């Protein structure tokens, strides 16, 4: 029997296998940031341990950092201490860090791929659940907790139980105005937030193969929202083209050796997945969430669902609670929902292609008078690239705010937060209660829907303009 892609990458990284124990897996790249690493470095100091492979480790500052006045010290003393702690730890343990103000600073999942450090067939971990993003390159990439961060720092390995595999086949062609964000929101609505639990997802099919790397990253990024620790896509010419020439891409003979290996990284024809799910891309339309978990989503042209429409008692209770929190009445057309803040950014949709797509919609138009739009590039490089293309002008002329790079309003650890009762259309990944600020209400959308919504002030698709 053949192997799935996930199984191949797994098997290539087993350092030690003993009956009755989890496999010990080698980690090719460890990304760290300020929030989930300080206690791990403390652990190393307490036990007199070193970072085993600083040359396979990279730190960025992203969760806490302000997106305004980045040349000044961070105003919040607690945030500042956390960022300073990361800087000190990196210096003490010899870890490369890209700090605020550095041209390579940005959200850790945007920085890794753009430096060419994310490559097919690697194992990549980070103390952040959206590490699944890197799976877009055919890497096995997943989020870990702080105890595991310490484990990887000390040993460059992790003991892990082998996950099951699930194929998600997306065949067909997306209609104009429909994006990879709509694909993943539709998948999560279909299998629920627990559906991928215990699995590595492999996204396959003609609709996936047709996507750019940026669009593939958006899909893999939200695997965790379906409960799966990792999601991946077989590398192909699109992947190789994206990597080629980036700072850490293999060179010369190494490039040829890498390509030879990367081309073997696909599920064998006779591989058997533990589960398969099918989705028809032809039938998809722009998707949006109405509730307080990412599985509570529907097509934008539908109405807020009634809790009674859910057969499952847990789902019905959750829907009732969500409608109260979101202050929505069943039966309301989604497109009638007024939006206070549009957030364009995050590790899900803060890449150059996302900004270009939104700018193309916004160009020459104005953000609605009662709506605020915040554009936060995923990295300093993305910001510079956008500025070189004049996208900053497009957003500023429309009345949107143009910010510096970071996680920003995706989770509101910095000052970029919703006020209680405020409602956002957000290109990020989580619509949990209070995620974007205490009492804030979040609708997850694609960059195209975000742009159209900013112009109309109500949830909209570009077709509504």
């Amino acid at each position, binding site marked *: 029997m053949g192997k799935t892609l996930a199984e191949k990458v797994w098997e290539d990284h087993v350092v030690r296998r003993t009956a009755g124990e989890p496999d010990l897996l080698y980690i090719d790249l460890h990304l760290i940031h300020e929030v*989930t690493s300080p206690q791990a470095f403390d652990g190393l100091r307490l036990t007199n341990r070193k970072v085993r492979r600083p040359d396979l480790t990279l730190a960025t500052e992203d969760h806490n950092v302000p997106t305004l006045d980045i040349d000044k010290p961070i105003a919040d003393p607690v945030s500042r201490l956390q960022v300073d702690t990361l800087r000190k730890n990196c210096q003490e343990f010899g870890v490369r860090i890209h700090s605020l103000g550095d041209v390579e600073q940005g959200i850790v999942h945007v920085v890794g791929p753009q430096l060419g450090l994310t490559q097919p067939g690697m194992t990549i971990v980070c103390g952040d659940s959206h590490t699944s993003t890197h799976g877009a390159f055919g890497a096995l990439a997943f989020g870990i907790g702080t105890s595991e961060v310490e484990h990887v720092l000390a040993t460059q390995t992790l*003991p892990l139980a082998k996950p099951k595999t699930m194929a998600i086949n997306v065949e067909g062609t997306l209609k104009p105005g429909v994006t990879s964000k709509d694909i993943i929101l539709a998948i999560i609505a279909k299998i629920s937030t627990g559906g991928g639990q215990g699995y590595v997802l492999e996204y396959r099919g003609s609709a996936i193969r047709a996507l750019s790397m940026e669009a593939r990253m958006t899909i893999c990024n939200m695997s965790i929202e379906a409960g799966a620790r990792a999601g991946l896509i077989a590398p192909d010419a699109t992947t190789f083209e994206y990597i080629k020439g980036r700072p*850490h891409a293999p060179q010369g003979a190494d490039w040829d050796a890498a390509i030879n290996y990367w081309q073997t990284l696909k599920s064998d024809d006779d591989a058997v997945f533990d589960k398969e799910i099918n989705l028809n891309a032809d039938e998809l339309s722009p998707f949006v969430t109405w509730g307080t978990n990412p599985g509570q989503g529907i097509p934008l042209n539908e109405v807020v669902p009634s809790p009674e429409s859910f057969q499952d008692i847990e789902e019905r209770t959750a829907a009732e609670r969500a409608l109260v929190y979101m202050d929505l009445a069943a039966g309301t057309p989604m497109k009638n929902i007024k939006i206070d803040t549009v957030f364009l950014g995050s590790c899900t949709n803060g890449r150059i292609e996302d900004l270009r797509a939104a700018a193309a919609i916004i160009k020459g138009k104005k953000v609605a008078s009662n709506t605020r739009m915040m554009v936060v590039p995923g990295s300093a490089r993305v910001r510079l690239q956008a500025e070189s293309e004049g996208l900053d002008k497009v957003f500023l002329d429309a009345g949107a705010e143009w910010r510096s790079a970071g996680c920003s309003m995706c989770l509101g650890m910095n000052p970029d937060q919703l006020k209680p009762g405020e409602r956002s259309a957000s290109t990020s990944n989580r619509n949990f209660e209070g995620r974007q600020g205490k009492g804030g209400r979040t609708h997850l959308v694609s960059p195209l829907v975000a742009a159209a919504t900013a112009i109309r002030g109500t949830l909209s698709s570009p077709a509504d303009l």
Partner: protein
Amino acid sequence: MEKFTSHSGTGIPLRRSNVDTDQIIPAVYLKRVTRSGFEDGLFAAWRNDPDFVLNQPQYKSATVLVAGVDFGTGSSREHAVWALQNYGFKVVISSRFADIFRGNSLKGGLLTVILPQSEIEKLWVAIENNPAMTIAVDLESKTVAYENERISFDLDDYTRWRLMEGLDDIGLTMRNLGDVEKFEEKRANFKPKTLPVLS
């Protein structure tokens, strides 16, 4: 890590599904650089509601949290485990846990027990009828016992052994560093390194 063999305490019924880690501890509480002091952030938003179960006096000293399906979804923050432990919880029972949260809990010595949803419902009712009722969770026999009930749960032998011995994973891996070195010798040359910095 402290050894975990068994725990007896009172329970608290959290009748909610999909309790994500942003609810367990909101992001604004994650800025500390220590492992302690996170109890103030535990369920911070929900605790503003005086009727929320954690605010009800009969559950004040509970150490066993019994929650709805899909507990611990979302962010990988281990602070969620620390917040539960700092507050005083020793055991969380649910019919399904998110993978990362479950891994974090079992590494940190917070026992997460999976029981069928039907058993969760019975346990909720029993706790609500008698908040002072003792729930005994035993790792040796892998059982949860209360009143006349005794329910078995599953936990792989390796994790159970590690919890009962109070062993930390890093120490265990350190014993096998020779295997890691051997693996590194045959790693492909084309794999990227973060150092030296290339541009």
